[in-house]
């Protein structure tokens, strides 16, 4: 899974800490999300998409095997 979190975060000039605070998670969770190493819950994905003013399917890109 790839994410566009880093790209969109940069667009809105948000640090990992800012985004983490907005969605109520720890900064490391955002870090692992950006690296594609953590699969978030639907709620967290929704909250991040909302914070970055985008849609979930535009934020997370699933690659077919």
């Amino acid at each position, binding site marked *: 899974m790839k994410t566009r979190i880093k790209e969109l975060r940069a667009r809105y000039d948000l640090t990992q*800490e800012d985004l*983490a*605070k907005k969605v*109520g*998670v*720890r*900064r*490391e*969770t955002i870090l*692992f999300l950006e*690296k594609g*190493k*953590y*699969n*978030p*819950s639907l709620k*967290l994905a929704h909250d991040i998409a909302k914070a970055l003013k985008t849609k979930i399917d535009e934020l997370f890109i699933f690659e077919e095997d």
Partner: protein
Amino acid sequence: MKKEYKYYTGIGAAAFLVAIALQIFWSGIDTIWVSRITSFLTTVGIVFIALGVGRHMIYKEEPEEDERTKKINALTLSYSWTVTLVLVGVLLLLDHWNILKMTVMQALGLTMAVMIAAAVISELCLKRKGDVK
């Protein structure tokens, strides 16, 4: 500082102040109970202040846990429980075969130490991972 940490620090400081006050105003009375209460309050004060200030230094304004850390903590407890169960089984067999005889206190102490160590080690390892299944 988060409200919760302020409460911890406040309670700790209050306990500490009461202990100091007891020491000053009751210093003439040489009772064992005053000494015990003062020691108890001083310990409580130090523990609470350490919890409040320590947690503030570690977490600052960040949440202490989120969905990722909750998953890790659940798995940590499960690993720790499994390791402890295996240890208790091994101790039981060793005792049954007369290989190792331990007192109840020794067995309980060892079990607690292994349980805590297993939890700490697995938490450290799992926190390095992004996700746990």
